[in-house]
């Protein structure tokens, strides 16, 4: 310490027993914080800045302590360079308090200071270790350019692994057809239950409410033209051909697509995927194929179920708001909506189901073994699934514009 001016230390306090006794008192009873404060006192030995109270993180971090304390610290540090800093009356000095003093002193010992041994140890540790944190890395334009390239390559790698996954699924289907008895039937039925059966209440509820809202809004508009009866056409066409399948698919994408990604992602985080590979179990056949099959089977059924619930809701609302009887609704429906619309909806739903399953598996298998990547993967999976469902629906609308209209 001799390098920094001529500080002198009270190696032992004059009044208070041994170091041991003092080491006990300042470090304990942290619950009540006393106000950290600094006063200027003049005695025969000259001016001294006496610090009192608890100079610990908990005490300092009170807003009404902090602002006045910081001001008086700065003022004293500037004005009283020759004064003696007397730390001996501090109740508790922790590393945050010590750091604060150290920074106030300009990161060196002041000329005169009175400290207890324990406080000196703390200050010495702060002095020894006080370095500025290294500057966080700033991205340069070149790196940003390279990032762009990386991003494009990322798309390519997504496309490649999606293609690989689809190809593997096709091979697995062939494998399945060759020997269906060896298929993972338990997995398949489990997924059908989890994706399908447990989703029945939520899809019915959402479908019903959409049907009610749609019918109510349409009835107001149609009445202006006196075209009340056309509510059946509008509801039948919109719900059966478009809304039923898309609603069900969006709900399942959010509900089961995310679950698939999370399940497979957790298997990656816990090394289960590697364990399967080591045991020679084909993960495509055991993980991807059952989910894809289950969703492809379940999606059309769920779409039909959602459509029925929505039609029921629409029928009810039409009855209530414009007195259109359910009998008329049911008799008119098959006349205005061709059967081909239903087949189109079912076919579309199979595609949606496959898409959601493959998408979920794709993002699940790409999860890196850390929790953050798991969260990102799940979000990406849901967003991509929903977007893809809507895109594919638009594609179907264009391709089959001549069917059933």
């Amino acid at each position, binding site marked *: 310490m001799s390098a920094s001016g001529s500080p002198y230390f009270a190696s032992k306090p004059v009044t208070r027993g041994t170091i041991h006794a003092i*080491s*006990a008192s300042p*470090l*304990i*009873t*942290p*619950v009540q914080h006393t106000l950290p404060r600094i006063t200027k006192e003049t005695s025969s030995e000259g001016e001294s800045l006496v610090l009192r109270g608890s100079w*610990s*993180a*908990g005490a*300092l*971090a*009170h*807003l009404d302590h*902090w602002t006045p304390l910081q001001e008086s610290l700065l003022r004293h540090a500037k004005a009283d360079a020759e004064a003696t800093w007397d730390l001996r009356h501090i109740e508790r000095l*922790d*590393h*945050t308090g010590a*750091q*604060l003093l*150290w*920074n106030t002193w300009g990161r060196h010992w002041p000329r005169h200071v009175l400290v207890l041994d*324990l406080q000196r*140890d703390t200050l010495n*540790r*702060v002095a*020894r*270790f*006080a*370095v*500025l*944190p*290294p500057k*966080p*890395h700033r991205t340069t334009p070149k790196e940003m350019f390279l990032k762009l390239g990386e991003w494009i390559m990322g798309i390519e790698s997504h496309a490649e692994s999606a293609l690989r996954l689809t190809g593997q699924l096709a091979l697995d289907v062939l494998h399945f057809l060759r020997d269906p008895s060896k298929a993972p039937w338990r997995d398949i039925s489990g997924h059908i239950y989890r994706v399908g059966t447990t989703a029945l209440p939520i899809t019915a509820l959402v479908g019903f409410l959409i049907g009610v809202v749609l019918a109510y809004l349409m009835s107001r508009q149609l009445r202006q033209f006196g075209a009340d009866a056309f509510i059946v056409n509008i509801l039948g066409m919109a719900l059966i051909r478009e809304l039923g399948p898309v609603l069900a698919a969006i709900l399942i994408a959010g509900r089961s697509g995310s679950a698939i990604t999370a399940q497979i992602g957790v298997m990656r985080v816990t090394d289960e995927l590697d364990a399967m590979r080591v045991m020679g179990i084909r993960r495509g056949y055991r993980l991807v194929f059952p989910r894809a099959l289950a969703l492809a089977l379940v999606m059309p059924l769920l779409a039909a179920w959602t459509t029925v619930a929505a039609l029921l809701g629409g029928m009810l609302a039409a009855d209530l708001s414009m007195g259109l009887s359910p009998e008329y609704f049911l008799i008119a429906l098959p006349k205005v909506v061709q059967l081909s619309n239903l087949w189109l909806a079912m076919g579309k739903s199979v595609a949606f189901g496959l898409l959601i399953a493959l998408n979920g598996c794709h993002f699940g298998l790409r999860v890196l073994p*850390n*929790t*953050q990547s798991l969260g990102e993967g799940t979000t990406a999976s849901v967003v991509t699934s929903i977007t893809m469902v809507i895109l594919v629906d638009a594609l179907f609308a264009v391709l089959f514009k001549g069917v059933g209209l």
Partner: protein
Amino acid sequence: MKPPVVVIQGLCSGFSVRGVRSVIHQDLNLTIARGEFLSIVGGSGGGKTVLLRQMLGLETPLQGTVTVLGEPASELGGAGAASRVGMLFQHGALFSAFTVLENIAFPLRELGVLPKNLIHDVAMVKMQMVGLDPATAHKMPSDLSGGMVKRVALARALVMDPPLLLLDEPTAGLDPDAADAFCTLLRSLHQELGLTVVMVTHDLDTIFELSTRVAVVADKHVIVDAPLREAIHFPHPFVQDFFLGERGLRAMEVLHPRTQDV
């Protein structure tokens, strides 16, 4: 006479899973004095970690009281809890979205008053106190080795200088060199900062190396609570197996000089 840091009286804890109640602790008493390095040992599933969680107020006692630093453990979790108790979780429990520096500074930053520079200075000091290189400050937890994760977690636990430090399996998952280095670090911090440390571990070397006292949890009680040399001769099958089994003797042989002066 210094008041004890942790007082547990008549503690009963348990879970009920699907209506079946399983009791983990029954009438458990334990007092931990200031400045001690207490190791809690016991069989797997014997309730060591649950005991630690009771001290942190993460579990609620069915009966009895847990008093930490003069207050009920359940009231420990309020604002500024990091200045009362530090906990080192078995797997570090670092926030994976934060860098090392942000992880360590997090309890201080959350107080919302101290300026960023001061907080970063404090975090950098703590980082080096646990033996980490300043260059690791901006790394993410996923880029760290197991030993480094433990060190960062320790720095985070100590950032507000709590008087009480709890450790759950501090050396589990570390290679022998890293475990030894971590033990040395823990011992020096215990001495330098005057901490009271409570440690749950299976690792005999760590127990022999660090603890000033050992509490053995078995049969839902603390069956022994004594300095190491007395504890190992307690006539109970678990204690005999644990300390005087082959592994125990081997560990003691290596550390014979140190066991003498415990």
